[in-house]
């Protein structure tokens, strides 16, 4: 089952998943907030394309609906809302110098390798064409978490969280051609509410602490400082 025998569409799906992994790496390295949001929107769009292709190749038409939801949520609504917040909080200008970018890149690479190692048993089991991409989706989730750990700005952490959600959606689509409809709707609804709440929190944090730097949120502790 080497790559050559795959049909053109499957090859396209695999390249698209590789592109999604690339966007995760770009998110890791990007320092400017606005371009961060744009890359996130790009990732959402790539996901939308992938899901449509999978729906077309597997004939599971309910996937088109979830692709539509992803397009609406992850490409239009959330990035628009983030850009609006960035404008109102006027943090367009500030740049976040991420500590040791090269170290983070190496860690990202190691994570991809690790997720491939972990996803090996699943790969043998799966009969679907897209079984190799399960490791990719797990990698996107772990990279999302890594981004949340390394970023100091609250907005960047939210973007990391959202990219993790993207990874999860991608994993569901890739491994089992999407979850049952009811679950899909529930997940989408939760992500939507989470995005709205993030917006509310940005204003509360700004009002409460005066900056969106996450490291300033360390009043609650038990260490003798």
């Amino acid at each position: 089952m080497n790559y050559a025998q795959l049909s053109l569409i499957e090859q396209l799906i695999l390249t698209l998943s590789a592109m999604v992994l690339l966007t995760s790496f770009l998110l890791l390295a990007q320092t400017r907030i606005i371009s961060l949001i744009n890359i996130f929107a790009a990732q959402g769009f790539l996901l939308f394309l992938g899901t449509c292709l999978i729906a077309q190749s597997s004939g599971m038409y309910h996937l088109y609906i979830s692709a539509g939801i992803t397009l609406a949520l992850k490409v239009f609504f959330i990035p628009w809302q983030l850009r609006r917040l960035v404008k109102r909080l006027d943090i367009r200008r500030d740049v976040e110098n991420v500590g040791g970018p090269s170290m983070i890149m190496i860690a990202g690479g190691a994570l991809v390798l690790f997720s491939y190692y972990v996803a090996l048993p699943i790969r043998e089991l799966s009969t679907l064409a897209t079984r190799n991409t399960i490791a990719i989706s797990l990698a996107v989730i772990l990279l999302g978490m890594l981004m949340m750990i390394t970023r100091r700005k609250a907005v960047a952490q939210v973007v990391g969280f959202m990219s993790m959600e993207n990874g999860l959606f991608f994993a569901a689509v890739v491994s089992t051609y999407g979850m049952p409809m009811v679950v899909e709707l529930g997940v989408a609804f939760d992500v939507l509410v989470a995005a709205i709440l993030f917006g509310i929190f940005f204003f509360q944090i700004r009002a409460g602490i005066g900056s969106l730097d996450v490291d300033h949120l360390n009043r609650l502790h038990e260490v003798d400082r």
Partner: protein
Amino acid sequence: MALNLVYLAIITALGSALLPILFYRSISASKFVAFNLLGISGLSGILGGGMALLRHIDISQELPIGLPWLPCHLHLDPLSGFFLVLVSLVSLIAAIYGPAYVEEYQQGPQPLLPLTLFTGLFVAGMQMVMLASDAFSFMIAWELMSVSSYFLVAYQHQNETNRSAAFIYLLMAQVGGLFILAAYGVLAGFSGAFDFTSMQLVELSPAWSSLAFTLALIGFGMKAGIVPLHVWLPQAHPVAPSHISALMSGVMLKVAIYGFIRFVYDLLGHVYWQWGVVVLIIGSLSAILGVLYALMQHDLKRLLAYHSVENIGIIYMGLGLSMIFYGSGYPQLAALGLIAALYHCLNHALFKSLLFLGAGAILQQSHEHDLEKMGGLIKKMPVTAVCFLVGCISISALPPFNGFVSEWLTFQTALQGTVLSNHILTAVISISAAVLALTGALAAACFVKVYGICFLGLPRSQKAAQATEAAYGLQLSQILLAILCLAFGVFPTWTVSQLDTIAQLLLPAGMPVATSHGWLWLTPVSMDVASYGAPLVFFAIGCAWLLIWLWLHPRRKNTTIRIAPTWDCGFGSLNARMQYTASSFTMPIRRIFRPVWSVSENYKKPDQENPGGKYQLTVDDWVWLKIYQPIGRLLLATARRAALIQGGNIRVYLVYSFFTLLFLLWVVSL
């Protein structure tokens, strides 16, 4: 019939706890209900326990409460009957003592209700421990006793010492309870079930039974107050109200002894002599250190608490000797040791309660805790003085009174050590007997100090000078206990024969010969090995005294008695400050046994505000300084280090979650 009486005792004790809540409006009504019900509970407990002991009743019953597959087993046999008599006797006396004594608390900051509530629960808890015969209900009764006595210790929680004492007490009670639970767990692990009957049948390997024994020793020892685990006792007992400290010191420690005996002799079945050596050594240590620390105390009730540690040490020595003999195949001598230990439990319950009730009367009248400020109370409180004197003589183990008989029996058991094949053991036993003698003598010295400083000489403070005799309730209870102390000292034979039935219950053979020569003699091994005619001794002293008094009487008419001021060698009238104080009385012993305590004396040169110079002596407990405080510091240090994980930075928290996930994934995919 006996079991119904005991049920009546427990129900009335619970009633005395809960009913006063209905009349919390009027203090006198609630007091009346609480103490009378407590008295009834004591009375029915004595009758029930006594009937079980005298008629060798051995009945058990199951109540439907408790876990679905482990109903609450209850079992009454002579051993629990004996200890039930102890518990109920002292609670009856406390019920008589209570009403007059608590008047002092009615004006105090704390309401009276918690006191009566938790006293009732405390007595009920102790009585239930006696009946419980499965691990679950035993633990419920045991902890009910611990928690209710915690609230009693913390009754006057407005002063700081009470609070810290109560906390340490509850902490050690909890740890002790956990050890006991572990001990029962080991037995249950092998026998599969939690009731005592099935625990008795199980055969344990030496290693497992030794583990169970050590856990039980630590668990029950922590509650009894043997040396390394005694730290809570001198802090908790002095701060409780006096009739409660009498209950706690006199009886609660005995409940721990009952638990230990029940576990070792009844449940463990085979007893190894090595255990006996450990118990003997711990007992001797507790005895000698208990009395040495008691000598150095100024606070009257704290001194009595340390003496409880000493007497528990003596009881453990008796048990240790009995276990050594049982382990090396001499059941009769083991029975003698067990009888000595049980008899000392009874005696200690009596004279320790008497002393605590006496101390309570002194505190109530003179509002003084510190010995250094008392003096000359015998002229103001004659009845309390006489009863306290009886208590002092009995605790110092002097002949006509009950303390001597049990200590004499322990000596006789130790003396039979020569019969053992292992001679090192004989040497160890005789050294422990020497330690017991030293303990007895030091106890006598300590109580001469207490009685001399407290009752005799000139009053050292204004309050002591204005003290008046205690109320009738207080006097009556003390007189009752004093008479009992004398009775059990002068007629020991009947009690020893009853205790012998318990020994025969627990051991293959009893020691009937001890009381075979009629009620006059006490002959442990045989007539010519050792014999003690207690009634004859008492009678002889009485008639010798009478003879001398009669012989001198005719001369009395022509020789007058002149009362004159004490001869002051011409310097000027003597005052109270010239007398020996408690710390000066024990100064020689402090210098001789110096390394035993951590003593810090500082003396300030005389200056204008205290012309006589200032001398300040603090004696504290090595065990507390060197074992318990380091544990506390270690715990806080680990807590400080552990708190580093809650550093406040959200990214660090995310790292924790991330690495946990990665680690588990790695583990799973191995």
